[in-house]
């Protein structure tokens, strides 16, 4: 797995000679800082150990797990755990539900936030200040416990029998940051661009769809990734909304129930955990820069 790489890439470092010897204080600092690897390497290994253990356990046989031992490398590789988790543990079904839930929430977020962000980037829009003020204030006002009214609302709308209600409940409170990201982006687009589109005969909607929205791809990338990972990992909202509908459970909720009903099948549980964790970890490894910048943006703005 890619996760192991910290320990392999940097291990040689403390003993290796400095690449550019003796450049005054800089190389002295470099030599001093190398000692930190002695602390960082074991620390980070322990930090990712649960992931290594999870992957290893999901390929071990149940007997090997019973005997115990600290070996990460399975003696006999088996896919039986995944088969059990996928069918008996219903993780196949849960994976489908998680995709449906996450993609619905994502579409809601991107459409709503990009439209609103574009509208709010026009400084002369009446009511702009009020909307922005409420949005920013809502970020800092503690929300207390709002799931009950949300639950009531979804029931009143008749959406309790599908994942759309849950996706709305998941996406709507998280709209503030995406909207602010889009406002920031569209606010920075030169006015001349919109003017030029208008000269070419494009109206408001046309300007947005064929000029502005394609321009905003970097922001959309961040929003898509943040929203997808957020919903994939969501637990509370899907739990509450699938209490009476076991067939709608997402991976997190499914794992919780699997653990509640069968606490002894550790390798099966590990396989289930791998099914829900590995896809998102791989996605993250490919797009980590976008994701980390998205999180950091919350602090900077």
């Amino acid at each position, binding site marked *: 797995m890619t996760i192991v*790489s*910290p320990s392999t*890439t*940097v291990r040689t470092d403390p003993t290796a000679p400095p690449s550019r010897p003796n450049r005054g204080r800089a190389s002295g600092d470099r030599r001093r800082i190398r000692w930190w690897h002695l602390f960082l390497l074991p620390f*980070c290994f322990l*930090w*990712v150990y*649960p*992931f290594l*253990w*999870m992957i290893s356990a999901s390929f071990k046989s149940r007997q090997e797990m019973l005997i115990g031992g*600290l070996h990460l490398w399975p003696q006999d590789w088996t896919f039986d755990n995944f088969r059990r988790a996928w069918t008996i543990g219903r993780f196949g079904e849960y994976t489908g539900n998680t995709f449906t839930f996450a993609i619905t929430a994502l579409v809601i977020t991107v459409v*709503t936030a990009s439209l609103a962000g*574009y*509208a709010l980037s026009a400084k002369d*829009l009446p*009511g702009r200040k009020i*909307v922005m003020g409420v949005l*920013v204030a809502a970020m*800092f*006002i*503690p929300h*207390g*416990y*709002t799931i*009950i*009214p949300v639950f*009531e*609302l979804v029931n009143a709308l008749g959406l309790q029998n599908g994942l759309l209600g849950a996706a*709305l*409940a998941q*996406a*709507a*409170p998280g709209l503030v940051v995406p909207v602010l990201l889009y406002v920031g982006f569209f606010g920075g687009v030169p006015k001349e661009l919109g003017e030029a589109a208008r*000269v070419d005969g494009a109206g*408001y*909607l046309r300007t947005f769809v064929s000029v502005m929205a394609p321009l905003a791809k970097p922001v959309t990338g961040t929003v898509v990734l943040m929203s997808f990972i957020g919903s994939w*990992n969501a*637990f*509370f909202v899907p*739990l509450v909304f699938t*209490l009476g509908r076991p067939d709608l459970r997402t*991976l*997190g909720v499914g*794992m*919780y129930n699997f*653990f509640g009903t069968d606490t002894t099948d550790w390798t099966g*549980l*590990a396989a289930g*955990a791998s099914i*829900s*964790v590995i896809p*998102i970890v791989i996605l*993250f*490894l490919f797009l980590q820069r976008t994701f*980390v910048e998205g*999180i950091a*943006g919350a*602090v*900077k703005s």
Partner: protein
Amino acid sequence: MTAAPAQRTPSWRRRRRRAVLWGWLFLTPLVVLFTAFSLWPIVASWWYSFFAWDGVGPPEVWVGLGNFAEALQASSFWNAFWNSFVFSLGALLVEFPLALCFALLLNSVLLRGRNLYRLALFLPVVATTAVIGLVLAIMLAPVGGVVNEALLTLGIVDRPINFLGDPDIALPTLVGIDIWKGFGITLIYWLAAIQTVPKDLYEAARLDGAGARQQLVNVTLPVVMPIAVVIFLLTFQRSLNTFELVQAVTGGGPVFATDVLPTYIYRYAFDAEMAAPRYGFACAVGVLFGLFTLIITLMQSPALAGRLRRSAS
């Protein structure tokens, strides 16, 4: 349509009216969704908290402040309150400063492999809390769990530790898992904050003969301080939302030793094992929870107001 000059001609007015209309049309989904799923629920949960209500039909039995009085007199409420507070203490006293130390270290361009270290520390953040929490629960099991096996083999303990089953140890264990899980976020916040320090400030400090420690104390920390307030607040708010971890791993047990306010509320509102849900009471506890968070947030408001004003404009 032609490109008319920006004068208040009839055609300018017509176009402006149209732009405003379109603008508000674009805003409609946001306003509707945000009002329905964020603002209204806040107000509604305050309203429900004055009723004895089991969720069937509209709330009718008005009990005034009865739910609040009941919660404030219940020792189980204060137990959950205290445990939530312990999670915050762990996050603010351990995670917050520790993440700053790691960020300072991992920000140094002289450290090789720093990106891989960051990646390793950030990995728990992207995993589903409930799922990875259960993986850790298996690893920490007293019989056959890999952690106890390692501790026994190394001779650190002579009896397995019941990390999640012992009422005295379960809470610190969960706080530790919570720190492990959230550490990467706080680290990224700090790294982002450190990177806002202008490079030429370091140059100037070096020219004045400042060493690494002096640069840290006189350049980095003063610039980072205003952002630290925001990081503090974000870490605090996250530390109170421990529902997923606690509910999945211990369910608040053993004997409510790890019960936090979110799991306490959940039990009254949704737990199938209780005879009838007590939505009104759960909402009241939620309001108390919100007030508590608000008070702590307001205590930092003078520092925060400056940043809010800047980011809102």
